[in-house]
């Protein structure tokens, strides 16, 4: 993995993206704005699952009508996210924030999958309930909390408090694999 990210950093595309005056900020802006679309609409769905908004709209209606827009935001968010990683691969790979963010992303995916595979099956029983059953409320809350964590850890990647290029406590050295950070 260390060799891979170092090779990635040496590719012309990575260098170009990293050094460009306008492209990097542009990609980052698109990342933030599409995050706003995806997480914003996901939050509406989560709040509906928690029984905190749109009580008069069937849950399935909220999900079905908003999903295409969420998918649109998510796709561009992921593409620009990969580009941001590609621009700064070594530092990102050795960032505790980035690593935490990836873990939270996996958990958010797992939560969505579990929700879809289990809770969603019975949606016709509670579709019209202003406040859905506990399992759906828990899934909505988990999604909201996880995405908030993803946004915060993502934003924190920009800060260098825990970067491997300066002395770090043992826990950080371990969590960020600082031992294999290029000198």
């Amino acid at each position, binding site marked *: 993995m260390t060799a891979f990210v170092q090779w990635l950093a040496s590719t012309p595309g990575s260098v170009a993206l990293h050094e460009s005056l306008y492209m990097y900020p542009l990609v980052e802006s698109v990342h*933030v704005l599409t995050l706003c679309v995806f997480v914003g609409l996901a*939050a509406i769905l989560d709040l509906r699952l928690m029984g905190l908004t*749109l009580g008069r709209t069937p849950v399935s209606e909220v999900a079905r009508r908003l999903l295409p827009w969420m998918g649109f935001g998510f796709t561009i968010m992921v593409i620009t996210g990969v580009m941001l990683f590609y621009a700064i691969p070594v530092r990102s790979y050795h960032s505790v924030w980035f690593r935490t963010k990836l873990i939270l992303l996996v958990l958010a995916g797992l939560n969505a999958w579990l929700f879809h595979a289990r809770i969603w099956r019975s949606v016709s029983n509670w579709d019209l309930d202003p406040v859905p059953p506990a399992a759906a409320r828990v899934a909505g809350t988990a999604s909201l909390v996880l995405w908030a964590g993803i946004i915060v850890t993502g934003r924190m990647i920009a800060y260098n408090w825990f970067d491997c290029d300066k002395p770090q406590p043992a826990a950080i050295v371990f969590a960020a694999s600082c031992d294999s950070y290029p000198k």
Partner: protein
Amino acid sequence: MLFPFFQWCEASTVGNAIRQSLWAFAVIESIHLLGLAAIGGAVLVVDLRMLGLGLRRQPIADLARSVHPWFVGSLAVMLVTGVGLFLSEAVKCYYSTPFWVKISSLALAITFSFTVRRKIALADESRIHPIWYKLVALVSLALWFGVGAGGRWIGFSG
């Protein structure tokens, strides 16, 4: 004329405290970003609906009313955290074009949201020509886009 005010802001107790803390700016900025995502959802649901997209089977007024507390709540979070961020670097903001773009868009977006857009959203749908909904939604989206993009760009300048 405005510059002394910006200097005063930067020298204020809160501005100083945020600037001198290692974590404060980052933490406030994160909350600001969470507010942005939340307000994005609250604005988009209604604007998409006005464009005839998204939750198009629901009455516009129903959606607007239901989402309104989340819109106001996230706006409040954004304003409080935004003022904090501004106080910590007011002088930089004074010289930043993106800041002025953002703050003008914000003033227009807030005014528009609580007057024209709210009035149209809550009106009797049968009495409003669809073109007005579309127009209002596009203006709203454009203004909030200016706020978000301008805001992000403050961090890239200077």
